[in-house]
């Protein structure tokens, strides 16, 4: 336990020092937003066993809600953040209540369809600016003191938001409530027969996950001073599944690593392609930057076929095997 705490403290110090080590703050903040998004998603898929194919709806709706509150209504930043989270949670309540009426594969299809409906709403609604999205959202000041226009100030605020979200997830997973969620994942009929109101637990997990995904969306609006339609697309819902899968389903730190890899990939695939093209002399690799989807799709297929535990999951399994071998020797 103490070693775990020490590890988190060390990680916090390193992350806090990153801007001084030459890491571009916006990039690091982007990773943190997506990491929180993936952790929130993992709470549902990894710990409750529900595959939501519509989590982009929560990211997008919170991003738009916060953006609109700050830009059009001129609300203070902290209220804008809360408003975004509240909107995402409310949407989560409605979508969750509908989706948990079916389970398994249908659950995934229903969440996907409902999220697509939310996407069309944002596409047509007047306040979202259609295809352009909301641009130049004012970041404002936090609690009237901290000026968020400074990237470095915002960096620590986003870091604090991420830490808060991560703590909520950590606390949830290690609570009696979290135990029931895991029981649901392993065997739903048995959990039901033990007297747990299965639907209420599922719905609560769904709303919690939606609210945290919303927090990530609201923070993302502050970072990029914009909210765009791409946050609400089904591709985004797929991307968060990939982040969680690459990092490790049902591990606390896996989604963070997965988010980092995917964001890095999106930013760097072009450079990588150019390097490959110089190395091999094949012209085609130059286009790689324009077709990130191919790379993402390929990683998806490889992960599902051969790498289902993800990086953190595989590492954990390797460690467990080593320990077992050491005990036998």
């Amino acid at each position, binding site marked *: 336990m103490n070693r775990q705490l020490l590890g988190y403290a060390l990680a916090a110090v390193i992350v806090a020092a990153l801007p001084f080590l030459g890491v571009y703050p916006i990039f690091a903040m982007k990773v943190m937003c997506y990491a929180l998004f993936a952790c929130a998603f993992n709470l549902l898929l990894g710990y409750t066993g529900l*595959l939501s194919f519509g989590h982009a709806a929560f990211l997008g709706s919170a991003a738009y809600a916060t953006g609109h509150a700050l830009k059009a209504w001129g609300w203070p930043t902290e209220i804008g953040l809360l408003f975004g989270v509240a909107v995402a949670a409310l949407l989560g309540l409605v979508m969750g209540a*509908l989706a948990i*009426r*079916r389970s*398994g*594969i*249908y659950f*995934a*299809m*229903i969440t*996907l*369809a*409902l999220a*697509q*409906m939310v996407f*069309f*709403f944002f*596409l*047509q609604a007047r306040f979202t600016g259609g295809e352009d999205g909301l641009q130049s959202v004012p970041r404002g000041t936090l609690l009237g003191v901290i000026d968020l226009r400074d990237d470095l100030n915002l960096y620590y605020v986003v870091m604090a938001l991420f830490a808060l979200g991560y703590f909520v997830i950590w606390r949830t997973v290690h609570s009696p409530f979290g135990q029931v969620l895991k029981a649901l994942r392993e065997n739903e009929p048995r959990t039901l027969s033990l007297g747990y109101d299965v639907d209420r637990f599922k719905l609560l997990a769904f709303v919690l996950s939606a609210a945290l995904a919303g927090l990530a969306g609201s923070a993302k609006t502050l970072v990029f001073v914009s909210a765009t339609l791409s946050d609400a697309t*089904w*591709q985004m819902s*797929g991307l968060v*599944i990939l982040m969680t*899968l690459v990092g490790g389903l049902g591990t606390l730190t896996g989604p963070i690593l997965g988010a980092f890899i995917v964001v890095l990939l999106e930013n760097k695939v072009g450079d990588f392609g150019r390097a490959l093209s110089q190395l091999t002399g094949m012209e085609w690799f130059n*286009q790689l930057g*324009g*077709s*990130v*989807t*191919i*790379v*993402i*799709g*390929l*990683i*998806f*297929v490889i*992960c*599902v*076929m051969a790498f*289902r535990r993800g990086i953190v999951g595989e590492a954990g399994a390797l460690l467990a095997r080593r320990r077992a071998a050491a005990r036998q020797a």
Partner: protein
Amino acid sequence: MIQIFGIPIQALLGQLLLGLVNGSFYAMLSLGLAVIFGLLNVINFAHGALYMLGAFAAWMGLSYLGLNYWAMLILGPIVVGLFGIVIERLLLRHLYKLDHLYGLLLTFGLTLLIEGLFRSVYGVSGQPYPTPEVLRGATNLGFMVLPNYRAWVVVASITVCLVTWFVIERTRLGALLRAGTENPRLVEAFGVNVPRMVMLTYGFGVGLAGFAGVLAAPVLQISPLMGSNLIIVVFAVVVIGGMGSILGAIVTGLGLGVIEGLTKVFWPEASNTVVFIIMAIVLLLRPAGLFGREK
């Protein structure tokens, strides 16, 4: 001019026909999804991408090989079906023992891969495809002008759907298929090669998507993204109809197409979302779907 609720009847019937055309695509795609799901327990996300592949096959056949529409109407589904068989043998087969969700995730990844490849070669703008000569023009029925090609799409797809229904519900082959859906191990014990049956079923379901794609080529723009926008609506259609019945899938698909068409007339803003709204209502009233059975 005759009007209904202030809408000229010509426009109304035109949208109705357009709705039927879309409904035919929904019906064929959801039928394929249902057949595949029945035997494989896999929701084939790649269905949309394979439908797009069918449309592109028609276009490529014409542009590169000079094969006309009628040749591609036969060849397109076969090519797409063979491609599906390759996917099943190489990839999907290894996932049957796992949670069903992995099948969905794999086919999702394949969708991104296929779409990404086509986008990097052909871009996002659509390719035009000429309507076959026999079906050009329109027939005046007196109360409306019927575009021949659209009528052909509806007739062809309903025929294919009904033939599929007949094969599955009324022939020995279909009986084996249904038995395989209920209890594959028992069917295997009777000496049926179930893995081969699974492979061919996937190929057939995917071939239906390819057929729909070739049919769609002259009416819709052939673009790499044409499939994934459609497949999400088809998922909603499948949730509404439930996957228990073949006829149910056909009726639901056509019906929702018509409803969508009518919404375009009376409330254009909602035409994109009406299918999803109906899905929400059906989930509240009859969670198993209109034709579904609770398992």
